[in-house]
């Protein structure tokens, strides 16, 4: 199927899209933290992948796709830094921003447990967003996407040793960040 797509068969490539779009979109979403931008990054990544299929030298197609979408996310994040957007977080009574985006969820329509799970996911995403881009891409690939070190190294284009180092530092920072949301964490994984 990959070879057929390299020969220009668009239908074959679209079958690959169906097989990998969930992986690619989740990578983009965890990297950017926003659905709309993740949607754009995913679409651009697949178009770029089709245009550059000739440069695919074999190996892990999944890692190759993740590398493309990660680069697309870097571009999106750089664009955001050049043109910062107004944060959507509301202000509390004292005028401070409410960092937790859980205000967007309507708790009236959901059970308490579901609300807490959503808040936890938002807290994790919040901590992921605070990581440097290199750390975030490594931890998302290994811990969220489930890639092994070699696949992550191939996707990011760095040695395995670099992946180990970035992953350890990213996990440590996440641990420190999530300790501030201890009340949201389940008892089994509550950090001390």
């Amino acid at each position, binding site marked *: 199927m990959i070879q057929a797509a390299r020969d220009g068969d*668009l239908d074959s490539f679209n079958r690959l899209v169906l097989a990998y779009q969930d992986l690619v979109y*989740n990578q983009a979403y965890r990297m950017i933290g926003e659905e709309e931008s993740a949607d754009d990054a995913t679409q651009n990544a697949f178009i770029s992948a089709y245009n550059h299929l000739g440069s695919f030298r074999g190996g892990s197609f999944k890692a190759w796709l993740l590398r493309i979408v990660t680069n697309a996310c870097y571009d999106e994040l750089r664009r955001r830094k050049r043109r910062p957007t107004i944060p959507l977080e509301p202000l509390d009574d004292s005028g401070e921003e409410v960092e937790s985006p859980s205000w967007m969820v309507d708790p009236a329509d959901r059970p308490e447990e579901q609300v807490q799970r959503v808040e936890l996911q938002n807290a994790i995403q919040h901590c992921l967003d605070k990581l440097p881009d290199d750390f975030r891409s490594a931890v998302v690939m290994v811990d969220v996407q489930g890639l092994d070190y070699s696949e992550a190294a191939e996707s990011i284009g760095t040695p395995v040793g670099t992946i180990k180092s970035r992953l350890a530092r990213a996990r440590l920072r996440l641990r420190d960040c999530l300790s501030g949301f201890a009340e949201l964490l389940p008892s089994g994984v509550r950090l001390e």
Partner: protein
Amino acid sequence: MKNQINSRDYELISTYLDNQLGSKERAIFEERLKADPELRNELHEISKTRLMLRRLPRQRVPRNYYVTAQAVRPRPTLKLAPIFGIVSAVASVLLALVIFGGTILSPTSEVAMVPAPSIPTETVASQQEIARSSAASPLPPTEAAPSIIMGAQIQATPTPFIPDATTTQPEIATPTTIYIYVYPPSATPVNPFSIAIAPTETPTLSCDEYWSKPLPSSADIYHCPTPTGTLSKYLESILSTSTSTPTYSPTPDESPTPTLTTTPWPTETASPTETPAPTATPAPTDTFTPGVTPVPPALGAPPQAQKLIPSGSEESATEITSPNPLLGAGSPTQAAQDQTQAAPAGPNFSFLSYLLLTVEISLAVIAVLAGITAIILRIRAR
């Protein structure tokens, strides 16, 4: 206690959780875990963080990301990149050939820069006639007439010093710049065929005299090196001489020599003619004065290199070089035009050098630009 755990320990913890440690490292690390409760606590918290990340739910894709034919566009740059690369490579090879090819082909580049006088067949034939005429010449052997040798660029050669110009009509193939080197009078007559050989004897002039001359001869160049720092003056002297007013006449009593741009070329060769005897102290002239009837150069005229620019007609060429007064009494206007065209006299060494330099620079620019373009296209294609 936490300060005792460094970044290396956290990397070990992370690698241990992912089961990426080797058996030996793993055993050592587990020994440390048993002995260090703080390290064990850190391992536990990092493990919970890792677990939370792995429990993150998969986001559902909002739509299918099919790629349509309209969304993808062909990338012609992928095909252009190797073309530019090939162009760059070819230009580089040509540049190397231009730079080093001359050295390989002509190891004696110093000599190669000077066009060796060549003798076309026509010239040899005319010189044979000159030899025959010299045998019948009443001139004493000590009187030597200017001998003529044609430069390398001669395409067709008029025979300027044949007494009867009508019997020796030159064959002019194409209008071409002609350089005629007129050798100075010689005390001893030599074989006419020897005039074909470039002068090999040491010039009679000293180098000081040579450089003091307004028009140094080519032969002297072999023996007198260019003084340091005087090249510009030398070029200025050439330029000023080329455009100067008449300062020289072959004989003190005669009119200026018509329409001949001259450069001296001392030689020992002689070419006997029937023309009158030379004067002892010639004064050079190189421009034509309108209104004055041009006369042929007298015997014993100073060494001259005559540059003729035939306008495509034999008549004009013969008119310039023939000693016949009738032929020499051409239109002053035309002669002046010839003089104007003959102004940039001398071998086109500098022109060839500039042409070579231009080619080298062009090839270098092409090679660099094509290479950069190829690199940019390849980077964009990624």
